[in-house]
């Protein structure tokens, strides 16, 4: 009796599996954005961030995230859900980030991620733009007598993060200078800092913004300095999964709107008062002219909400990067009209 019962359970579960097999598939290729639908149904944007990088994505003691990478997700939440706070943050290591995005655990990866060909083309990801132009640099102790990368000599030991482009750039750099070096790659930034601080390595290399941010965590920040040279291009930007073109567009244009808003002098405080502006481009950005939102299945005020709730790029930069002392000088991250390289396609 007991055996027959057990058999029954087995047969039923086996057939369930078969049914499940038959139902699977579909999803890709449909015109509406599945990610957008799921986000609206869930009521929050699933955003992957770093495990703590001041200025980019960092949580305070109460667990509130802030930073320019966080603000990309906030902008998307403001656009698609009407509330910039409706974001669920998932802190990810450099190693985990792409897998989490591909597996659908997050829908936007906004985690100081360098745009490279192999990442864009090879592993099922799409980069939507650049929200910070960075480059790899070196940090050394001030008393080391090293003032330039040309002072490095063979036998130097360099600490860095594993699973990042810095490991590859470092090799290219030292090889081109014909310097033999000892790479020491840690999984988490905190351990890199601790090991460098303890004297395990002579130099610490990562993106310059990261060096500036991590320096603040050291026991004696003033004992260290960042060398002037930049050895690589690191365009950092948000990433989405391949295969959902509408979602990709939403994220791209949420970022572009913030940059263009700065160009036209639209800020979080004056945005709503500019509805009757003379300039049609400003009117389009604050939603009083044209129907730009309909292309993604959003209402017309999506861009106004981004500017009002999150701010324009200049405001974000000032708040997270400049005023915190990480990189007071905007350098390449200045608008093209002011000598930088921030130049986005027009929202029209």
């Amino acid at each position, binding site marked *: 009796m007991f055996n027959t019962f057990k058999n029954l359970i087995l047969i039923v579960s086996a057939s369930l*599996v078969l049914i499940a097999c038959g139902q699977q598939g579909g999803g*890709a290729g449909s015109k509406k954005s599945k990610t957008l639908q799921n986000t609206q149904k869930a009521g929050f944007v699933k955003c992957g961030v770093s495990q703590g990088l001041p200025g980019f994505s960092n949580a305070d003691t109460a667990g509130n995230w802030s930073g320019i990478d966080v603000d990309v997700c906030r902008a998307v939440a403001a656009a698609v859900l009407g509330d910039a706070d409706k974001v669920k943050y998932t802190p990810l290591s450099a*190693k985990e980030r792409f897998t989490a995005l591909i597996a659908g655990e997050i829908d936007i990866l906004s985690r100081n991620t360098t745009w490279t060909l192999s990442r864009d083309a090879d592993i*099922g990801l799409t980069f939507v733009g650049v929200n910070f132009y960075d480059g790899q640099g070196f940090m050394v102790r001030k008393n*080391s007598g090293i003032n330039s990368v040309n002072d490095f000599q063979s*036998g130097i030991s360099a600490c860095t993060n594993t699973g990042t482009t810095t490991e*590859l750039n470092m090799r290219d750099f030292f090889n081109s200078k014909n310097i033999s070096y000892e790479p*020491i790659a840690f999984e988490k930034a905190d351990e890199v800092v601790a090991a460098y601080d303890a004297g*395990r*390595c002579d130099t610490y290399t990562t993106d310059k913004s990261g060096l500036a941010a991590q320096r603040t965590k050291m026991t004696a920040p003033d004992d260290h300095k960042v060398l002037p040279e930049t050895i690589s291009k690191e365009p950092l930007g948000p990433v989405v999964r391949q295969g959902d073109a509408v979602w990709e567009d939403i994220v791209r244009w949420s970022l572009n709107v913030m940059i263009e808003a700065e160009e036209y002098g639209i800020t979080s405080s004056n945005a709503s008062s500019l509805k009757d502006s003379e300039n049609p481009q400003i009117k389009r950005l604050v939603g009083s002219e044209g129907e730009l939102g309909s292309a993604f299945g959003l209402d017309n005020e999506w861009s106004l909400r981004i500017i009002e709730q999150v701010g324009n790029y200049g405001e974000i930069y000032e708040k997270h990067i400049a005023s915190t002392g990480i990189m007071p000088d905007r350098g390449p991250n200045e608008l093209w009209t002011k000598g930088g390289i921030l130049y986005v396609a027009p929202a029209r």
Partner: protein
Amino acid sequence: MNLKTFSLDLKNKKRLIPQVLTLLFIVLLISYFTFNAQVNMDNRGIAFGFGFLTQEASFDIGFSLIDYDGSRSYARAFLVGLLNTLLVSVIGIIIATLIGVTVGIGRLSSNYLVAKFAEVYVEIFRNIPLLLQLFFWYFAALRALPLPEQAMNFNDISYLTVKGWYVPKFIWTNFSIFIYSVIAAFIAIIFVSKHAKKQREEFGKHIPSFYIGITLLFALPFLSFLIGGVELEFEIPVLKQMSATIFNFRGGVSIIPELMALAMALSMYTATFIAENVRAGILGVGKGQKEAAASIGLTKAQILKLVVLPQALRIIIPPTTNQYLNLTKNSSLAAAIAYPDIVLVFAGTALMQTGRAIEIVSITMGTYLLLSLSISSFMNWYNQSVAIKEK
């Protein structure tokens, strides 16, 4: 069971049905997930394949037992990681066994201080999570060790610093002849001990095979130096200044602090469990056995060697095999302190650079499985050799 009895035994046949169904269920479950993964990967335009293994890795590894640099393939990087895992596991197993046996015997010592010390050691190190111990050894060691310019100096040939332990490098001439001499020594030892056993069993004659063996082990390689043309030179590390305050040793071999910390943490932790196994094994041998041995006039050393240990080993080996397996698998915590083991190098950096999560994780899992199975089959073989042979 042969075919004839099988077809006749209806009862057995009936019992087979649930087993077949369970098997079918598992196969279906696996194929469901495989199919799902395939569809999902197709949708996202990810190709499955192992072709990436031959591509250029283009990242460097700080510590490698074989020749490697970034221009080599991912497969080579995998091998570097695997060898580093094996290295730390072997070192860990040896040290853990030595400490474990010592502490295990120490716990049974009649000396109060020794017994207490062993007990405190076991209770502390087995009750703190391994990862914490690892961080402790690594960061405590880093903070405690001197900078290269103030290195701890061992007779001007070896230096211990925060950047590693620098030891002289051996430079051999005619290394193969030296190896042959060692092999010859081992063959001679086996021959001598067989002969000694025969002499003892047949004629009751005692031949000191242990001392003869030791002598052979030193004498034959020594001869290879004298007449075999084998030469050994040492490359001694020297301090080099690289900038105003940066110094480092060049030349020699560097044992990196990551390896020292990892081996230390793994062996200190695992030794506690081995110590308990040893204690259980010795206590598991009946008191009467020792008394009987003493009554026929065996010395204390002989009692331990001939009566207690052979019986205790039967109790000690199976659970100790588990500990060896645990140690090997725990070595994957290396990634936390930047020791370039297979997880950090292959399932970390290589995975990141190629994005081939499924392929790389399956290769890594398969490797650990293979490692564990090899260790356990070796230990099973050893266990069988010491087990009671029913006559």
